[in-house]
Structures are given as structure tokens and as C-alpha cells.
């Protein structure tokens, strides 16, 4: 039995937990406001909000693409669709239906044309209002970076964001983001009762107890497989699997449930990597970052996995539930081949705390700068003292069958003076270590040039710092 609350109604269902939430919402619950655009997380038309109970008894909401959200992953949570945030209307209100402030701002600015993307935008923007993020149009823009609109050209939508920024007081004046949203009619009153209802639900909640492939956020497993995914065995992490990031004893340890958004919101992590917000903005979208785990990125083993490149440069180690430890740069044996048994699950990820005078940078180029898979990517952690590179680790993705550390390049650069001539010489070595192939992400020739440019960019960024 999967149990959750949708809008203001409880759901109890014996439905296949592998079913994508979108399908369940549209065809079982008959809530047609949530739209199907792509079924692979790339358009945002299916965006819903998922609320999860926090330690303090609050509900924390985030936007997700329901086409990639397994039904099993909303067990014990609050699911909100566009029907659940629209102000109540009476049957007599045939015209002039009441709108929430988000909807009103969109309407005032002509930000809906064909309307098919519109509920998704409304949900992403409402999700922003329910988040801890401060109420700025820049933050609202980030909130809609996973929503594609083919009609408007986005400017009218951004004008709606500006209107919302001007309209609301700062959230800090309220007890919680949910209180802020209720007080300003962004969401209906019933949101106030949800925490109590979720606590009551949790009291009687049974774990799903399934066997099979572990699902993190589902943002890899569910892509282009929503019709076959119902026929395989999956296991959901469940509410016990809590995201946790610990920084102590010279190392950083993250639990397997840690998502990109958790890292973005974690104060200690942001202090370590002040550019993480900027860097991770290049990776997928708000909705996907809210779901995607770092562990899932590693196990997916894509040659262009962005977080794999990121953590390779940080010399991360994977800790399995079997207590076996494998250095990330030893995990990949070949294309999508891992030093991992089918049963082994990542329990945690660990990496040594970079020294305080080290420099870190991440580079990624894709056809579209955001919400796109890299043509090539690279991360670099280095220590430069008196213009001499005393320590360096550079990773590269998209230039071989697996994400890789450029060992030879780094060995050459270590203890060399940081000059253009040295970099040029190092790039010759880089070219000998990589083996890119021509594919949808670019020709071999392009990727060879690009990786050189990205490595140069690390040093340019270092000089600019």
C-alpha cells in the first residue's frame, strides 16, 4: 500500500509503485492540469510539488518532474498539483475565475499563450515561493530553468517574475515559507493542516519492503523507459534514507540520499565551494537537481556525468553498504562497467577536505548552456604556491568511455611553474590520454579542442579569482 496526500485528499493505493507519478495523477486520479510534454524530465510541463516532513515538524516543498518520479518515492509525502494551489471557485463563477498571485502575475503579463507549459511554470514558481530562497526575480528564474515554453520566448514569464518580486514582502518576516505562502494566498489555507495530517499518516505508515534495483531520484532509471519500467523490480529508498552531509575530521561525508539541491542548500558545503551554486546551475534543472542524487550520478556511470567529474577531482571514495570502499577513480572499469556487484549499494560518499589555499573550478560546455548534457566537462583542484603548481587533480568527461582523471597531465603539471608555455605543453599530454569519439554531443575533433579549452579555462579562472 502506498499512502500519501494529494492536494487536500489522502490517497491509499495498491497500484504498482514503479508507475510514474504523472501517469497516476492524470489517469488514475483524473487530475488533468498536470501535462505530459516529453516524459523524460526535459520540459517541466509535468512539474508538481513534493512536500516532505522535516525534523522540526515542518513540511519542506520542492518542485519535481512527475514523469520521472516513481509513485513509490512519494510514500508518506504531500503531492501538490496545479489543482491544489488554485483558489477555490464556486460553480457560479463561470467567468473571472479566481487566480493565485502567481497565476495573476502570469495573466497580467500575457505569459501564457497555448497554455500547455503553463501549469508547469505555475508550479515551479509556486515551489519557489514555498522554498527558503529569498523572493527575487533572479531566484524565480532559477526556479523555472527546467520549464520549456515554445510559445512565449520567456520574456513575458520573466516580467511575471519581476511583478512577483515587487509584490511580496521578504519571507523572513514570516514564521516559515509555508506561512508566508498561506498569508499571501499563494497557496490555500489547507496547507496549514498538512503537517498534522502527514504526522498522523506517518504514525501508521508501512515501509514498502521491495526487492530490486535501488532507485535514487529516478532521473536516470525512468528516462525514456516509462512504459517498460513497470515490468522491472525496483526498490525505493524510503523515508528512512535521510540526506546528510557531515564535514569533520578533515573529510566530508555525504549519505547516499544526498541530492544536488541538498548540497546547494548546505551552508558548510557552500563555504567550501563558494562557486557551487554557479557550477551546479550548469547541471540539469531545478526540478531534476531536487531529485537527482550524487550516488545515482556515480552509478549511472555516464562518461559525461557532471558530478562524477566534479568529485573525481576531489578524490572522492565510494563506501558501499558492504563497508567496501572504492576510490571513485577506480570505480569505472570500462564503458558503463563498474567495480560493484549487483547487490552492493552506495551507503555514503566521502572526500578529503581540500586545503584552505586550494583552488577549485568546474567547467562544462554543452549545445545549450543549461539543462543539457555536456559535450565535455572538467573539474580541477589545485594548489599554487609562489606561482608553482604544488598539487593538482584534473578530471575530464566526454573524452573517453568513462569519466577520468587526467593522471599524466597532472603528473606533468605538478611542481611546474604556472606559465602559458607549461599549460600548452601539458595540453599535448592531455591529447595523448584521451580517446573521444564522434557522437550526438560532437565530433572527436571538437571534443579534443574543447577539452583543451576547458583546461585552459581552469587556469584563466584561477588568474581571475
Amino acid at each position, binding site marked *: 500500500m502506498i499512502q500519501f496526500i494529494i492536494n487536500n485528499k489522502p490517497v491509499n493505493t495498491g497500484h504498482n509503485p514503479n508507475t510514474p507519478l504523472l501517469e497516476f495523477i492524470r489517469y488514475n486520479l483524473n487530475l*488533468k492540469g498536470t501535462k505530459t510534454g516529453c516524459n*523524460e524530465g526535459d*520540459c517541466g510541463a509535468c512539474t508538481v510539488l513534493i512536500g516532505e516532513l522535516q525534523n522540526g515538524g515542518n513540511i519542506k516543498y520542492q518542485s519535481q518532474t512527475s514523469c520521472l518520479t516513481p509513485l513509490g518515492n512519494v510514500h508518506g509525502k504531500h503531492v501538490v498539483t496545479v*489543482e491544489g494551489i488554485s483558489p477555490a471557485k464556486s460553480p457560479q463563477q463561470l467567468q473571472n475565475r479566481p487566480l493565485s498571485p502567481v497565476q495573476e502575475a502570469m495573466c497580467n503579463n500575457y505569459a501564457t*499563450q*497555448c497554455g500547455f507549459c503553463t501549469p508547469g511554470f505555475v508550479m515551479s514558481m509556486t515551489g519557489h515561493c514555498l522554498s527558503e530562497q529569498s523572493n527575487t526575480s533572479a531566484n524565480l528564474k532559477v526556479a523555472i530553468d527546467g520549464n*520549456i515554453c515554445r510559445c512565449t520566448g520567456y*520574456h513575458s514569464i520573466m516580467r511575471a517574475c519581476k511583478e512577483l518580486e515587487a509584490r511580496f514582502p521578504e519571507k523572513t518576516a514570516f514564521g516559515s515559507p509555508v506561512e508566508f505562502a498561506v498569508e499571501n494566498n499563494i497557496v490555500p489555507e489547507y496547507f496549514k493542516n498538512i503537517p498534522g495530517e502527514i504526522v498522523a499518516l506517518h504514525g501508521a505508515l508501512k515501509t514498502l519492503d521491495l526487492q530490486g534495483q535501488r532507485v535514487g531520484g529516478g532521473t536516470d532509471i525512468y528516462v525514456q523507459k516509462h*512504459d517498460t519500467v*513497470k515490468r522491472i523490480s525496483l526498490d525505493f529508498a524510503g523515508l528512512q534514507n535521510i540526506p546528510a552531509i557531515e564535514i569533520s575530521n578533515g573529510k566530508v561525508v555525504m549519505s547516499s540520499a544526498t541530492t544536488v539541491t541538498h548540497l546547494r542548500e548546505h551552508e558548510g558545503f557552500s563555504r567550501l565551494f563558494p562557486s557551487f551554486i554557479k557550477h551546479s546551475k550548469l547541471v540539469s534543472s531545478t526540478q531534476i537537481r531536487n531529485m537527482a542524487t550524487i550516488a545515482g550520478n556515480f552509478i549511472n556511470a555516464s562518461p559525461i556525468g557532471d558530478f562524477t567529474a566534479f568529485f573525481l577531482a576531489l578524490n572522492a571514495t565510494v563506501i558501499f553498504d558492504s563497508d567496501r570502499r572504492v576510490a571513485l577513480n577506480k570505480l569505472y572499469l570500462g564503458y558503463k562497467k563498474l567495480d560493484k556487484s549487483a547487490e552492493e549499494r552506495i551507503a555514503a560518499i566521502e572526500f578529503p577536505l581540500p586545503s584552505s589555499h586550494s583552488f577549485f573550478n568546474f567547467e562544462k560546455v554543452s549545445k545549450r548552456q543549461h539543462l543539457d548534457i555536456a559535450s565535455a566537462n572538467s573539474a580541477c583542484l589545485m594548489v599554487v604556491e609562489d606561482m608553482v603548481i604544488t598539487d593538482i587533480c584534473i578530471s575530464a568527461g566526454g573524452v573517453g568511455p568513462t569519466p577520468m582523471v587526467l593522471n599524466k597531465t597532472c603528473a606533468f603539471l605538478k611542481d611546474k611553474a604556472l606559465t602559458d608555455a607549461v599549460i600548452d605543453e601539458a595540453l599535448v599530454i592531455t591529447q595523448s590520454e584521451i580517446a573521444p569519439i564522434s557522437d550526438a554531443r560532437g565530433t572527436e575533433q571538437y571534443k579534443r579542442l574543447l577539452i583543451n579549452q576547458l583546461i585552459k579555462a581552469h587556469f584563466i579562472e584561477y588568474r581571475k579569482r
Partner: protein
Amino acid sequence: MSATNERIPPTQTNIDSQTHLRGESLYLDDIPILTGTLFGACLGSPVAHGHIRSIDISAAEAVPGVIKVFTAKDIAGENEIGGIIQDEPLLADHEVHFCGMPVAFVVAETWDIARYAMKQIITDIEEHEPVTCPRKAKELGMLIHPPRTHRLGNVDEAFENCHYIFEGQADSNGQEHLYIETQGAYAVPQENGQIRIYSSTQGPTAVQKAVSKVLGVPQHSIEIDVTRLGGGFGGKEDQANTWAALCAMAAHHLQVPVKYALHRLDDMAMTGKRHPYSSDFKIGLSEDLKILAYEVTFYQNSGASADLSPAVLERTLFHCNNTYYIPNVRATAYPCKTHLPPNTAFRGFGGPQGMFVIESAIMFVAEKLGVDATDIQYRNLIQTGQPFAYRQLVDSDAQNCWHAAANAFNIGQIKKDIAVFNEQNEHYKKGMAIMPICFGISFTNTMMNNARALVHIYSDGSVNISTGAVEMGQGVNTKIMQVAAVTLGIHPRKIKILSTNTYRVANTSPSAASATADLNGKAAQIACTALLNRLKEVAAQQLNTTELDHICFKNGLVYLDDAETALTWEAVVMTAFVQRVALTENGHYATPKIHYDKATEQGHPFAYHVFGTSITEVTVDCIRGIYDIDSVKIVHDFGESMNTGIDMGQIEGGLVQGIGWMTLEEVVYDAKGKLRSNALSTYKVPDVYSVPGTITILPLETDKDNMAILKSKAVGEPPLMYGIGSYFAIRNAIKAFNPNAKIALDAPMTPEKTLMALYS
């Protein structure tokens, strides 16, 4: 006084806004499902070209829940859905002509059973070599129809007198429509062999005709109903027919409702896109940079069947000069038949492809001569009274738009600022380009320029309007409602615009060619005016006057000689009803003055032209080979916009779509004709970060009369072509970094091409 001369307040938001925003608007996949409905899935050919030896459907039919698998032999009527040319089977019979060509249609109890069973169908196809390149197809004589040529003056003679002559090649790639709502249809059998089909189509009549043929049932038995589309952009003008015909065939055969809403992957693989073009140009200029002669050969990649390619090709020829006067022109276009999905209408309809080539030729000349391309552009802008190659004399606003843009935005200063920036920055370079446009409004097929509107006034004074217009986000229903409200002098609240339905309005032209509001709006205006005149007579009796001209309906009240009377709209309607006055009217509009002779390739095909000038500025990151569109500044000829909110939205949206076509959007087929960019993860349209930092749109100040509805010029397609400026602006920025960069005139300018050019 006549109410139609009154200006409409241009602030009416889209009448669907509230239901859109609340998620209550109904699209095809939201229509409540009737009990017993079955679901379809269509198998596309796995190979691009071949002979079908066998299709084994036994395993698929054995899947529990599968009702039937249809193949070509199950078609009761004709296996033919071609519109302009009858060359397109609904389901492949003997031969397959493109990857994704519909081969079989599975009908099952649920959509996932249907999709699962579809994958169990075994096709045995003898593969032949596919042709994907239009030039190769032309060499092999594979043409949809013979080439067409537009001629003006004497090109050969003119070239002899040119001071400069250059020759080159320019290519532009296709473009996926990527309407966010995929294609689909829902067919529901009715009594007596009739059938109702809900279709996500821009062309209900085209769907009706295709279904009629496939079922072998007359058109009067086939009701097509369209509430709205989640985007069309031309992709659902002709290519909605297949899914409707498949559902109708199955529903008719099984006598149960059948629905098929396409999966995104199937939609992208099975439907055609904007036509890629490869073109050769030869351009001759005088010493003072007047273009004297232009010869151009277009190789249109039409795909496997005609679809709308002949009409698209025609518009390429009409727009091959863009907005320039060239006294000697020879433009030839070949519709090349390849083994790709039949390419189809896409906003601009071949016009942008033609304009890209002349702009490329001008850029080519500018680079060779070391002059500023904007100089050449400016000197050659067409003037009122000058002809295009098709001989229509133009009422030109080309200069006016250019001057207005130059003044408002200070082009000189922009150029200076860019030079300074480029001087000061090593890793970043800026570039700019100007894109003047001219786009002809009307279907180039004169016959199609007509529309009807059926207007009912009910006895309580409420009004329903049905037209042939399909609402797909362009706001046409809002505009029609505005026209009716102003004409009848009543509050918009009293008016409902109904779904587009072939039982209510017959023989419609598709919602396309930017002309939907003009044609259907005028039809509604005609119907409303006729009704109003009848109501005026009724009111006149009651007011004891015979001077109908002195009566006016405004704000739901009747005015006599500009003075409010006690009569209300409702009262007059009720009296009319009691007096048995007809409260229903069918308005018919056919665009006057237009004509075109295909034999001589001469005539007056367009009701009017739309002009505009845009200035695009970009910054290229020369380390990473990526770019940002900093700003686009536009002076646009709206005529007199009747709804600036909607019209500005069309400009911003069209511009961004054009920028996408020129920059990120790359349709990729492999050598075997299989689509590689087959999902949103591999085909990238602009997102919120890739749009211009600022978009400024100023209306051209004009008081000229025009033939548009309420003088509010068509605005759907023209702005897409402002996007072409982004291609040339990026090119200029690359040249600022590497003056020797070798850059083929080959759009889109992807980051890959940009980086390779920066370091070439």
C-alpha cells in the same frame, strides 16, 4: 456612425488565460474518456528505404489486451492522405520511404499494452540505400515536381555589367516544431456510420478530407472538433491527418472509440520538420554596392512525399529577395525527394530559408570587400512602387523601419561600443547584425484565402461564434471576440468563441500563413455587421426613426444620435426574436484583389506585406565557444495593433524560435536516415537562459491603410525572421576574435561550429 471604427482597448488578455493558469483548459489528452475506449500505438518503419517482405503481427496480436493490429490491407477506402499531391500512403504498403513511416497500428485496452505490443511486431524489410541529401536527390532525378523559376529583368546581361560578382553556397538546417503538446486524435463512432474525431490539428478540413478518403465515407459524415492546441507552429497543419485517420480507421472498423496521443519519441521520429535547404547563389553589384543581379538555386529537402513542400517551395521563391529591390533575378527551386520524414510547414513556411540565402550572399560580399554588410543592406532596401520578381508592386515600409530603428537605437553608437569592447577584451568578443524583414500576407494559393464565421445570438442576448480558426496560443479567438464585441457594441463577457468544428463551419483553410485572424476575423465582422443591421432595424422601429445610420450599439445600450436611449441590447434582441428576425448569420470573406498565375509566375499574391528591422547584439566566449544573445531591438510594422499584449507575445516568441533555429536547434539524421536528435534530451530548443537579455519592440508609427482586420497586421510568422540576425551577429563576433576564421554559411551556428571557427 459605425462602431467598427472605434479603437479597441489593446489590453484584452488571452480569453483562455484563466483556465490555462488553473490547469482547467482541455487539450486532446484531457478529454474525458468514454467507457470502452481503446488505445492505439503506431509502429514506424525501422529503416529509411526498402521493400517490405513481410510484417508479422502474430506475436503482437497474442499480447493479452490487444484487440487488433491494423496494416495497409485493412484500409477500407483509399490508402492515401496526401493533400497537394496524392503521393502519401497512410500505412506503408510494399515500400517504406522513411524511418518512422507508419507501418502498423496496434489497438489495445491500455496505451502501454499497445506500445508494448507494437514492439513485438516483426518486420522483414529488404533494405535499399537511402538518399538524405537534396543535391544528391536532384542528381538522381528524384523530385516531387518539376523545378519552378521566378524571373525579373535579364540576369545574364546584368551580370556582364556588374562591378563585383561573387558566388557561394548557403545551407540552413531543419527545425523540429516541438509543440509541447504532441500530436494525437480521439475518434468516437456515432450512429449511422458517422464519426466524430477530436484532433490536435491546425487544419480540421484537411483531417476531414483524409479521413473521408481512408474510410471511403463522404465528408458530411465526418465531424472534426478542435478546442485548442498546445502549440502547432505549422507542424499540425497537414501532419495531424495520419493519427486522426488511424484512429478513425480503427474506430470505424471496431465500432468503439479509439484514442492515440503520441509519445514524444514517436512524434519526433514520425513527423516532418522545417525543410533544410542547400542553396547556390551568384550575386552581382555595382561599384556603389547596388545589387544588380541575383541568381539563386534552392535545393529543398522535401522528404519522402509532397506534404506541403510545393507550397513551402513557392514561398521560398517569393521571399528570395527578402526586403531588397533587385532588378534582375533568376531564382530556381527544386523540391528534392529524400528518404526522410516528409518535411512540412513551420512558421515562415520556406520564407526564412529564402531570406537566409540572400542575407548570406550579402555577408559574403561584405566580407570579401571588407565593407560593412549593413551598408549593402541599407542601399538596397525596396521602395514603394518597386516590384519583387513575382511582379507585385510593393507598398514599402522598409526604409521607414530601418530609419526608425537607426534613430531609436543609435546604430552608430552600438557599432562604436562594440569596437571598444572588442579592443579591450581578449577572451570575449561582441558582434552585431541588422535584420530587415519583409513578409507577404495571404496564402500563396489564392483559392485558400477565404473563411466563414457562424454567429448565433440567443434570445437572452448571449452570443456564440464558430469560425474556421484554430486557437493554438496565437490568440486568434481573443481577437475574434474583440472584433465581435466592438462590432456588436456589447461586453466581451456576452460572447463565447466555440471549438472549431467541421459540422458548424465547412471547407475551411488551415490556421496558417499568419492570416487566420485576418480571414476569420473579417468573416466574423461581416456576420456581426449583418446581424447588427437587422437589430438596428428593430431598434429603429422602437425608437420611431428610419435613420439607421443614427443608431449605434455601444456598451450593451442603444444610442440614437449619440444619446443614450432606454433600449438595451437584451431588449432589442428579445424583440427581434419575437418578431421572428433571424438571429443567426454566416459571414463569408474572400480576400479581394489578390491573384497569382503559376504559369507565368506573376501576379499579386499578397494582401499586404509586413516590414520590420531588428538589431541583434551577441557576446561570444572565445575560450569555450559559447555565446549569449545580449539584446534584440526591433522596429516592427504592426499596422494598428488591436491587441498589443498578444502581438508583442507573438514577436517575442517568434524571435526566440528564430534564434533557436539559427543557433542551438540541430536536427541530426545519420547516414541511414535515422533521426539522432529524437528527444528533448538531444534536441535543444531555447530555455529561459538562452533568450536575449533584453528585447525591445517599438511599433512603426504609421497611419497607412491596409487590408488587415481592423488594420491590425498579421504577426504570427514575420518576427521569426528577426532571429536570422543572431547567426550573423555571432559570425561577426567570431571574426573579431579571428579575422581569418573560415566559417561556412551553414546554420545553425552551434557552439561546436563556433569553437571550431574561432580556432580555424
